Each structure stands twice: as C-alpha cells, then as structure tokens.
C-alpha cells in the first residue's frame, strides 16, 4: 500500500506523453575488448571474450566467435597456461587445464587484432572460517494456527563469529535454497527470505542487492549479526529446520565488480535510482578477472 503513492505518480506519467529520444548527438563509441573470467580452486580457467557496444546499439551480445585471441595466464609471474578457442562452447580453455591455487597471484594477458593488449590480475582468497554461531527465533506474526502448525512470519537471529584473517575484508553472503526433508513440502529460498537490514552489526559496511549481502570491513570481518524473516510454517512438534548460508570471499576489486554489477542490474528498471558505475579491473578493456572462494555454512534451528 505504501506504493499506492507511486501508483498515483505513475498515473501522472502515463497520462503524459512518452517519446523515444532520437539520440543524434550521442557520443560515438569505440569498441573495447571485454574479457570475463571467474576462477576458483575447483575449476580451471575459462575465458569469455566479446566486444563492448554503444548503449543504443541493438546488436546482441555474444561470445566472440573467433580464434584470433592469444591469452596467457601467469602464476606468480611464471607462465601458468595458454588458452585456445573452443568452437563448441565459444570460449577459451587452457592447453593444460590446470587448476589455480589459493593465495597465488594470477595475471592474464589477452591480445586480439585491432585492440590494445588487455590484462588484469587477481588471486583466490582463503575460505571464510566460521568459529562459532548462536541462533534464536521468535514469531512476529501468525495468520493460521492449526493443531500441528502455525503459519506466519518468524524472525531468525543469527550471530556468527568469523576468523578475520582468513575471511579477509570482503564477503558476499546469500541464502541457499534448502529443500528441507524435515519440513515436508515447504522449502526456503532466497526470494522468500527477507533480510532485516536495520539490525546488522555496525562495524561492517553493507550493501544488500540481488538477495545478496555484500559485506566489507577494512580491518577484516570478525563477526556478523544477521536477522531475517521467514514466511512459512512452524510445526508445533519442534522439527529442526536446516538452512544453508553461502559465504563467498574475494579480492576488493572482484567484490566491487560483483557488488556494483548486482546493484546496477537490480535498478535497471528504476529511472529514479542513481546509476552505479561498474569498477573495472581490466586494463584497456572491460569485464572481470576475479578469483572467488566459497563455503557453505549449514545451521539448524
């Protein structure tokens, strides 16, 4: 109902005239090479290449259908692998299919005719380490009460203590879909879980976008105090709920890329939001070269 206000506002807009802008004076865009590669210790490097377009160019984005790129990856300054085009998957795979290691510094270089050399470097940080957690729940609202269950909204309060050295200063937290056997037909998904952002512990910086919580602490993330609402059923026989949290660690540049990309995507249809520029770690081009480490933390309540 809060948004009735905006419905009225939108009604004013609808009654106005909308016109497609003829953008004659839009700056001419010089295409740049776009390189995308996320890597972790469980998979090999895979590069996707494409070209940037003008924002009003209607050509579809596609992986570059060409074997002309020359890509190399270095590990701590020493050649690690070279990459060749795979026509079936339209991406670039390593000759030796080597897997990267945690902590090593990787640098890639890519040359392509007609474009300057693009390069970037990143590393895979260690996994987040949870020392301990405490959890409690409380019901905030109910709408049906049967002999066996209560249907309603309940708060879950979770406090997590982390190892700040291993966890580092960038963390991306999300809820995993958990098909709870104990719950029978009901499962929890990220879209049904609403984070209460007002009660986050203030020592960290937060951005909540795309059902993910981007957490940053310059000095290392020591703890999290989370509170969220679950909409569902509470069985009266106190059946245990199992829920998974996904904790991803990455470098600051990868963190910023993912955070800004997610915020930009989320606001794509909101003309009143302030645009979010995406930080770019690729020199002379666009895209991302980012190492990510991931752990799932399962807890019960």
């Amino acid at each position, binding site marked *: *109902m809060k948004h*009735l206000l905006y419905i009225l506002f939108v009604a004013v*807009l609808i009654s106005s005239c909308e016109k497609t802008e003829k953008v004659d004076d839009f700056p001419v865009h010089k295409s740049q090479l776009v390189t995308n590669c996320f890597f972790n210790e469980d998979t090999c490097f895979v590069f996707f290449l494409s070209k940037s377009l003008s924002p009003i160019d209607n050509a579809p984005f596609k992986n570059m259908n060409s074997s002309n790129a020359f890509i190399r990856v270095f590990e701590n300054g020493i050649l690690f692998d070279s990459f060749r085009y795979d026509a079936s998957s339209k991406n670039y795979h390593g000759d030796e299919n080597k897997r990267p290691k945690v902590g090593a510094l990787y640098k890639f270089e890519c040359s392509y005719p007609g474009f300057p050399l693009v390069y970037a470097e990143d590393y895979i940080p260690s996994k987040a380490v949870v020392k301990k957690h405490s959890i409690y729940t409380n019901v905030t609202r109910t709408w049906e009460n049967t002999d066996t269950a209560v249907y309603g909204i309940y708060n879950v309060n979770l406090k997590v203590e982390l190892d700040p050295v291993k966890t580092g200063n960038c963390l991306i937290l999300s809820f995993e879909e958990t098909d709870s056997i104990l719950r029978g037909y009901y499962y929890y998904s990220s879209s049904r879980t609403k984070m209460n952002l007002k009660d986050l512990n203030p020592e960290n910086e937060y951005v909540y*976008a795309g059902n993910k919580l981007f957490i940053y602490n310059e000095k290392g993330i020591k703890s999290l105090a989370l509170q969220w609402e679950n909409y569902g059923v509470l069985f009266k026989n106190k059946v245990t709920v199992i829920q998974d949290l996904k904790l991803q660690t990455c470098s600051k540049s990868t963190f910023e890329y993912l955070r800004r990309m997610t915020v930009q995507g989320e606001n794509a*249809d*909101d003309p009143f939001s302030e645009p979010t*520029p995406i930080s770019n770690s690729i020199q002379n081009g666009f895209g991302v070269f980012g190492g990510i480490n991931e752990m799932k933390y399962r807890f019960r309540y």
Partner: protein
Amino acid sequence: MYYCNRMKTILSIFTLLILSNLTFAQRSIYGYVQDSASGERIVNAYVKVYGEDVSTTSNSFGYFTLKTNKDSCLLLISNPGFENQAKLVLINEPMPLLLIMSQTRTLKGAVVRSKKDDKVVNSTQMSSVSITMAQIKMLPRFFGEADVIKAIQLMPGIKGGSEGSSGLYVRGGGPDQNLILLDGAPVYNASHLFGFFSIFNSDAINHVQLLKGGFPARYGGRLSSVLDVTMKEGNMKKYKVEGSLGLLASKIGIEGPIKKDKASFMVCARRTYLDFLLQPIFRLANGNASISQGYFFSDLNAKVNWKLNKRNRLFLSYYVGKDKYYVQSKPYSYLYDGTTISDQSEDRNQWGNQLGGLRWNKIVSKNVFINTQVNYTKYYYEIVQSASSSEVNDTSSIEQYNYYGFKSSIRDLSLRSDAEINMGKHYIRTGLSLVAHQFEPGTAVVKYSETGQKSIDTAFGSGKVNSLEASLYGEDDFEVSKKLKINYGLHFNFYNYKKSLFPSIQPRLAARYLLSKTWSAKGSFSNMRQNIHLLTNTSLGLPNDLWVPATNLIKPMSSNQVALGIAKTFKDIYELTFETYYKSMKGVIEYKEGASFLNVTENWENKVARGRGESYGFEFLAQKKSGNLTGWVGYTLSWVKRTVPEVNFGKTFYYKYDSRHDVSFVLNYKENEKWDYGLVWVFRTGNATTMPTAAYPSYTPNSYFPNNYNPAYAYSGRNNFRFANYHRLDLSITKHVKKKWGLIDLNLSIYNAYSRINPFYYKVGVDYRGNRQITRVGLFPILPSFNIAFKF
C-alpha cells in the same frame, strides 16, 4: 577556546563600529505604510526624504523609521503596484505616522506615472527578488493556478528543477537549502500534488520576497535562500469576498473588519476536485460500486490582525493544508454456503503542513521597534491500511481486524524576538530565537486481532528524536559616508543533538557604494550553517522526502558566499542589476550510487554520502516595474559542481541541476481596464544526467553465456550527459468584467504553447524484444486552462 577568541575579536569590532559616529541630534520620523483601500500594512515600501540622501524600506509589518536633520520634510513613498505618494511632515507631526498609498488599479486610466524609485540602488541588500501579487496574478497559469513559487523561478539564479515542479534550486543549492517562511513560521514541504503546485494560495498572500545571497545576520538556518511569504492581514475598512473557479481547484476567501480600523480577519480556503471528477472513471475501472478512490489537496489560510493601540499590534496566523490519496471499500456483505461474510477496508496516504503563529509588534520608543513571535509548525506524512472482515453462521462468529500505519513528521516550536533600533547613521537589528525540533523519521504500527486468537498491537521503527537550536544575532546598517553604506553582523547558532553541541559563528557583510545617483556597486559575504537535512533525490517534492537532524555521522552543512554586483536605474522606471557570485558548500549530502528514493525500506543514513559543493556564475536582470507594459528579462550563466568521496570514484561532477544558460522573458501588458495579456518564455540548458557510454555483456560466476537482458553499462562519470535544452512559451489573456456587485476576472492560460516535449527524465534500458534503447519521458504538452475569479 577557538570560538571564544574568535567571538571576542568579532564582538570588539562590532561594538567599535556601532559606537563610532553616533548621532543623537537628529529627528526621528517613524510609522507605518498602509493601503488606502484595505487598511493593510504595505511591506517593502520605499520611503525617502526629499532632497536628502535618507531613505528606508518598510519592514515585514509595514513599519518604517528614518532620521533627518530637518524639522519639516517631504517624504516620498513608492511601491510597485501603488501610486507614488508624497507627504509633508511638519515639526509637530504626531508619531507614529500613517503613510497611505493607493493601488494603481483603482485609478482611472490605470496608467502609472512612477516617480523616482531608487531602492535597488540605495539599499545595501543585494541578490533580492521581490514580485508583487498583482504581477504574479497577471502571469500565465499552470492548470489555472497562479503560483508564487513558479513566478519566482522566472528570476535569474533560481531554477525549478523538473518540468512543472515548484521546487527551488537557488545558486546551485539543493531543495533543502531554502528557508521558506509563512508569516515567520518555517514551512517544511511547500508543495502539493508531487510538487506541481506550491502550498501558497495566491489569494491569501500579501507579499513575497526571496533572498539568494547577501543574507543579513537576522536570517539563518539554511544555506541558499530565504523565501519570506507574508499573508494578507484582512481588510480593516470593509468586508470583501474573493474567489475563483479553476480547472483543478476552487478558492474562496473572506476578509473584513472585526471592528473597523481596529481589528480585521482573513480566511481563505482552496480545494481540488480531481477526486470528484475522476470518481466515475475509477468506479468503471474497478467495476465495483462499493469501492471509492481519489486524490485531493486542500488548504486553509487564516489571520487575525488586532490593533491594540497606536504602538501595539497583534497578529494571529494559521495555515493548514493536506494532500490525501485514498481507496475505500464500503461495508460489503454476501452469503456463501450458509455463512454471511462481510468485508470493509481503507487505505490512505496523506501528508500536510500545520502552521500557527502569534506575533506582537510594539513601537517601544521613537527609535525602537520590537516584534516577538511564537510559532508552531508541523509537517507529517502517514500511511494507513486497515481491513476488517467477519464470517457469521449458525454455529460460529469470527471477526478479524488488520491495521498497518506508518508515520513520519517534523515539528518545531519556536520563540523569537527581534528589535530594530534607529540610531541615525546606524540602523541596528538584533534578536534571538529558540527552536525545539522534533523529528519522527518513521514509525510503523501493526495491529491484528481475530476471534479466539491472541491479538498483536506493536509499534516499531525510528522513534521521535529531539534537537534544540538557539540563535542570537546583531546587525548594523551603517551609513559610513554619503556614498558608502555597509551592513555587517554576526549570527550565533548553537545546535544541540543528543549529547553533542555544534556551535557556530556566522559573519555577514554587505556594502553599497554609490557611483552616482543612479548607479551603485555592491558586494556581500555570507557564512551560513544548516543543521537539518532533507533526504530526497528528485525535484518532485514528494511527500516522503524526509527531514532528518544533523548527527555526529551526518554533520551540519555550511556555506560561504561572495557576491559582487552593480545596480542601475534609468528613466525612473527601469532597473538593471548585474551580479556575480561564488559559493562554496561543505557537508552537502548526495545519494550514493545505486540508491533510489523508491527504496523506502533502507535506512536513510546508508543511502547518503557527504561532500563538498561549489557554484559560481553571473546574473543579469532588467526590469520594467511600472507602466502599462511591465516585465523583465533575466539571464544566468552558472556552474554548479559537487565532490563526494563515495560518489563518482571521488571525482568532481556537475550537479544534477547545473544549467549553463538560463533565460527568462516575462511580459505583462495592460491594454486597458478590461484586458491584460501575459507572456513568458523560458530557455535553459538541459539538466545534467548520468548516461552510459558503453554496454557490454555481464556474466555471473559459473555462467557460460552473456546476459543480453541485463547488460552491464559503463559510465564515464556522474552527470556526464545533458538533457535536451528546455524551452517553453506560456501565454495568458485576462478579461476584467465590472458588474454592479463586483468584479469578474476571466483568465485563459496556455502552458507550453508550442507543445515542446521537454524531457522529464531519460531511461536507458532493454525493450521486450531485447533491443537496447534510450527513451525520454516528457510531461505536459500544450496545456490550456481556464480560471474565473470574482471579488466583491
């Protein structure tokens, strides 16, 4: 310690300046300037001693005072919209004087032959905008409504933000940096209908003045402007009814004497009728006669003016206004499977202002005038959703009730006292004020009850927060020599929030140097401080724009402004002003990247970042204030920039409402007593906005194909692109019809006469076919409107 030393030094200089050159041998002439027809005081009238370089302007209560060396003298009085007057003041003339002026409209022929009015040249005040209500009413109207703020937007240095908006962006300042006063009480949201109309009912307003720089020490609390609006006092002579029927709203106002020449009243009300007009359409759309929905705004201005005696006067002012959007489902029952089911619900959004003030004017002695006032002001915004239902059959009865309410508000209680002391060459103003602010950034109430179930009745959200502000000021309008006059002063402010105290000393200085009798050069410096912030990222004046106190995290804002200018009058009826200014601002807030005002759930402190701002430019204004043809040409060349560490990667960017060139051309022509014509043409460089410079495929970890429907956009910086230039022509024609019982004004206005689609916003996106495109949305093509006004 730093503040103590600084204060001592400044106070010493201040005292020395006052004590120097004091003159006590002069004769004081003081009194009020008054409208002959209504008996109302005239604000800002220019009073000059003939043959001497002694002049003054009446204050916001119509009071004036000046000193002369002569026993008898001739006073010349002038004010736009009034016939110039001369009054001989003899040696034994009893004080206070009453200087009577007649409105030009009441004279046959209505041709005004103005005598010399050199107020703009003689006054130390620069960067001042003053438009008479008569001028405002002659301008073309938007939806049939004459609007005070839309008229002010036509002056150089002032921008209105988006199409049709009644926002104010003064010399690069934000919409929160304007101190808007209605009879001395601050107004926190001066707009109706999402900012398309201001709350000021033109039939209830007597005088409007806006300062955009060179602020005297008596003003404080905002960085960029002071808009001082004075309500009518009420006719002291006879009863008068004034009203109008417009396309969107109707107004009615009554004023008259409670006791002739002793006390008067004024009541003026306005309401829109969109809800009545659209009711059938809504019903058709809903297909349910039991549902009613609509929107309206209404306001009421009232004032009582009581002359206790020649030296004492009381004013009681009141304003209440609200906007309301509602959907109501009336009680509705039906029978289903032997059970009677009943439902009813109500959803409403409403917001509004309530203001009240009591002012007491006292002429203490021949040299001292004091005004003391107590004010109350409140702006609130609330949402209420409630629903109740029942199911009744032979065996059971279940009733259910749901309620959700959200409320935010700001409320001020203030006490203020100002004194004006005429000491010949020194005209001293001093005063103090105490303001108790109460903020309620947002509280939600949830209630739920059901037969046989435990009830819920809980409140959560940000609670009420209090802060206190105390101010003390002193200023002196000092005539150093015949050519040089300065106005210097200090404004002390102490702001308390929780356990933190934010003191400030704000020096002000303005000077005027007469180059000749018709030329003067002016300069000013103002240091300003603002202790409250407005959270908004649009110019729409949305009701959920939130006022919040400065805190330890989001500290007060401050600014320094320097302005230099030249004022010139020629041929007695033309005024020219050239001004150039530089303003720097600290602590201005900007929405962070990705923040949206549509996201109402996020904590406000997380959405904003603090930074610096600067603006500079040049303004030119040529006005013709009297005669059958009046109007002005204004031009502004300006630059407005912001630097916020958390925005645009810390690089300086142009402000959203940075507009390099701004031209306004306003003409009012009074052909005769029957016909008036109005023309407004405005042009300005398009606002700055952020547009992408490249698009490229986005991937997420573990994805193998680019996301064509959600590409990534690269930006070369914030506000890197310009809207198309804005220009618009408005026309109006008014016919005055005299009837036996009174006067009818028929006004036809055409807004945007050549139907220019001026951009309201741009949108970059992907259509349903996956094509990337840029669209612009424009509001209001050609918009004719009609208004019938009457008075008797």
